[in-house]
């Protein structure tokens, strides 16, 4: 590795500070305890722009004031900020006066008021009064650039933070600056909404109130809120967030920079889906099925009695279906109830990451500094663990070779072939099309391997490849689970014991089924099991189809209402903090009570889950667990006609929470099918045309979208639009 960078010594405001060569002046000053004010400067957005000129400083030997953010420390530099230089103070005052020429003074109206960098810096560095006598510029306002973001062009100071995020971080290229000079405006294309997975970050980045959240709009002011540091449990990344509450309700969620996990970014699902906690169809009291009366709301004690009775009658013939969103503590309570209290041993685990992966753990941030990144699997990384996609993009910008091998990859591979690809790359003589990649992987200093598919054995294959490549320091293998805490739930289940178990894939009757959470309710396997169960105990936030099969339904909690531990895809245990009170008992309290009735003592309070997890016994390889859908066999030959191999992916913007936030509706996957360019032109199908997908008796009409990255013979559809379709479909024009 390279030698530590040379240290240089500079003087800022008569204080001497020694920093590594190349450190920016703003950071160097910070190290000396001096703040240089900035608007446009944000190191996470790439190289500095120097657009706002707020950071003007005097540098000895240079005739004019310089923008500190664009300079790096040079040995012997003597810098004077506005604290010691009248020239710099005058310059900054002038800059603020210019910025305020057209900025409306509607701070009482503005959502940013009270937490606004422009307000703060004007107070500290700006002129006391304005000399502006003519009318300020006006625009229509607010302009909804998407159902989530309102743009106020009058307030915009053209720092280009938002457009730089769009272009250089998320690389969606949708938010741009139009026109030139004084008439520049921030805009999307025509009237199209800013539809991107990370669009909400521009709200955080905006140093004024130009981009505001429509969800948070006018809900609270900064002095009326409490910010709770917690973790987003909407996907397996586990981004660190601030949950803002006002009057006992979650008003917004903001990114809380964890440089190793999320780098300070947050996807729109994590940012905006919190309103599902207040959905109209939220369950708030237990429900019990009573003969002749149907589903009836009952007191908690009665629900407890009913659950007790139902489970006792089932004996050991009990299966528990996890949804993967539970905290480790909840999963532990439920697992111990089932394994130790009921003597049953069968669970439907949404994820089951292989323990072999633990040897190749690395923080997500390591992806950025990798030389070669390999992504295998059928599911788009962006839909499964969105932040990982940002890290991969950062790696590519940094010069890394990022190769996707799969149905939509740079190296085309049939669906379900990820395991074979790992094996081929690990082998001593890989096939022709992978040879170059295999060589690069072996020669690279730092490698990041990402598995983004639905095959639970993936962890093993990925770990196998990682071992073959002899991954060392700075490299990592990342298996993307399907669910937020799938890894933690699996660990908790394993820790609660191991034993025989029955096979739930048969068709004999089941004594009882415990369905934990809304996501599990949507699993078709769970629905099938519920048909065979004599007693179904469900915890759910919302009533929906499978709740119709339940005998006892307990109101569930959302992640913002839970205290506990979640384990993200890196295997990092993070603490969830209760942000708001749940409407009733939380699952942990209920299952602890229930477990006590079966002679198992479960602590109803969240314990120091991090320590607990560390002390978990190593898992045995024989525990009976129903595997997730098995990997598909080798690809059937793409038919000469309109036969396609169907790849479905679970869209990020799907699920019970997203469906209940109307502002997120536009982010949900469009009813369309992606077709490879070659096949589409052969069938004379263009983007936007209606096509019919048929498999057996089932047919679905969707809009076509031509995706030139897709491998020939593969069609891709979001899971929610592929209901009932088989893996092989026939596609023709409607």
């Amino acid at each position, binding site marked *: 590795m390279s030698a530590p960078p040379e240290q240089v010594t500079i003087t800022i405001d008569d204080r001497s500070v020694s920093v590594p060569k190349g450190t920016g002046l703003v950071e160097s000053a910070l190290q000396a305890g001096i703040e240089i004010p900035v608007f446009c400067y944000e190191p996470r957005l790439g190289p500095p722009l120097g657009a706002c000129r707020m950071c003007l400083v005097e540098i000895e030997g240079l005739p004019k004031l310089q923008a500190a953010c664009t300079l790096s420390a040079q040995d012997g530099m003597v810098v004077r900020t506005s604290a010691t230089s009248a020239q710099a103070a005058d310059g900054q005052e002038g800059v603020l006066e210019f910025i305020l020429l057209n900025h409306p003074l509607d701070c009482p*109206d503005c959502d940013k008021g009270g937490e606004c960098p422009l307000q703060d810096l004007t107070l500290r560095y700006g002129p006391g009064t304005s000399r502006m006598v003519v009318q300020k510029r006006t625009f229509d306002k607010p302009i909804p650039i998407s159902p989530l973001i309102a743009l106020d062009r009058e307030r915009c100071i053209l720092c280009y933070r938002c457009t730089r995020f769009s272009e250089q971080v998320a690389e969606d290229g949708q938010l741009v600056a139009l026109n030139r000079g004084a008439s520049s405006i921030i805009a999307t294309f025509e009237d199209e909404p800013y539809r991107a997975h990370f669009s909400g970050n521009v709200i955080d980045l905006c140093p004024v109130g130009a981009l505001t959240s429509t969800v948070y709009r*006018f809900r609270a002011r900064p002095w*009326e809120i409490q910010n709770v540091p917690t973790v987003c449990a909407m996907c397996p990344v586990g981004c660190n967030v601030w949950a803002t509450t006002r009057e006992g309700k979650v008003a917004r969620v903001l990114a809380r920079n964890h440089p190793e996990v999320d780098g300070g970014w947050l996807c729109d699902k994590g940012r905006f889906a919190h309103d599902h906690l207040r959905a109209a169809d939220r369950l708030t009291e237990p429900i019990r099925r009573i003969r002749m009366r149907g589903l009836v709301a009952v007191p908690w004690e009665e629900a407890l009695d009913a659950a007790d009775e139902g489970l006792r009658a089932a004996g050991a013939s009990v299966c528990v279906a996890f949804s993967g969103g539970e905290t480790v503590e909840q999963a532990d309570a439920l697992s111990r109830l089932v394994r130790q209290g009921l003597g049953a041993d069968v669970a439907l685990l949404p994820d089951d990451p292989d323990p072999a992966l633990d040897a190749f753990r690395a923080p997500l941030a390591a992806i950025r500094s990798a030389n070669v990144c390999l992504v295998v699997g059928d599911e788009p990384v962006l839909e499964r663990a969105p932040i990982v996609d940002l890290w991969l993009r950062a790696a590519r910008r940094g010069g890394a070779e990022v190769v996707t091998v799969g149905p939509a990859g740079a190296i085309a591979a049939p669906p379900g072939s990820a395991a074979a690809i790992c094996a081929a790359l690990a082998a001593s003589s890989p096939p022709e099309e992978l040879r170059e990649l295999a060589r690069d992987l072996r020669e690279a200093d730092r490698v990041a391997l990402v598995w983004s598919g639905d095959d639970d054995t993936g962890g093993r294959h990925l770990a196998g490849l990682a071992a073959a490549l002899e991954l060392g320091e700075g490299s990592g293998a990342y298996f993307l689970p399907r669910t937020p805490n799938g890894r933690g739930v699996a660990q908790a289940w394993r820790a609660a014991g191991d034993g025989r178990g029955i096979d739930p894939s048969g068709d004999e009757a089941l004594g009882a089924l415990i369905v934990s959470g809304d996501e599990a309710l949507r699993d078709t396997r769970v629905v099938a099991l519920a048909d065979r169960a004599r007693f179904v105990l469900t915890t759910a936030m919302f009533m929906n189809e499978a709740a119709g099969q339940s005998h006892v339904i307990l109101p569930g909690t959302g992640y913002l209402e839970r205290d506990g531990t979640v384990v993200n895809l890196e295997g990092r245990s993070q603490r969830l903090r209760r942000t708001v009170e749940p409407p009733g008992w939380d699952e942990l309290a209920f299952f602890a009570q229930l477990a006590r009735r079966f002679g198992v003592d479960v602590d109803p309070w969240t314990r120091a889950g991090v320590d607990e997890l560390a002390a978990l016994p190593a898992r045995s390889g024989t525990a009976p667990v129903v595997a997730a859908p098995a990997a598909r066999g080798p690809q059937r030959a793409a038919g000469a006609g309109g036969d396609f191999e169907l790849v479905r992916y679970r869209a990020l913007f799907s699920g019970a929470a997203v469906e209940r936030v109307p502002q997120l509706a536009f982010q949900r996957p469009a009813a369309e099918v992606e077709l490879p360019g070659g096949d589409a032109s052969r069938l004379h199908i263009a983007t936007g045309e209606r096509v019919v997908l048929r498999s057996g008796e089932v047919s679905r009409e969707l809009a076509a979208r031509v995706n030139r990255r897709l491998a020939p013979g593969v069609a891709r559809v979001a899971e929610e639009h592929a209901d009932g379709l088989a893996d092989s479909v026939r596609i023709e024009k409607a």
Partner: protein
Amino acid sequence: MQNPFEGAKGFAVTLGQIFRKPITQQYPEYKRPVYPRFRGRHRLHRHENGLEKCVGCSLCAAACPSDCIRVVAAENSPGNRVSPGERYARIYEINLSRCIFCGYCELACPFDAITLGNEFELSEYSRDDLIYTKDMLLRPPTKTMPVADRDLYDTPDPVWKRES
């Protein structure tokens, strides 16, 4: 023992007062005029065109030392325009049982939307009734309080009271 004449001195003072004109004011019948800058019950004001001056910025709530103001804002729409800005106060409540009538709210208000009037008869039978809602605060006071002659005092009226 103390001097026995001490007690008699006290009675003498009492005796002297008996023959003076009493200074007791028969309150409900007679209301002594309040000072011109007296701070009584709050009022919210409207612009001449009927729109509310309050935009729901919550600065009054921030300034309030007894935390008795609650503001919940909402967005004006073309069909429902309440205030001139984008935002208006959907809920504006003052808990007068907690209010200490310090007047910080009117100082904080950027639009002179709230002022403290001269009404001081604010007793109710229930504490709940002391939570004044926006409608109550917007309505002109029903009781008129006598105010002392402005010219007797040389402190000027504060600007926000003159203009609202």
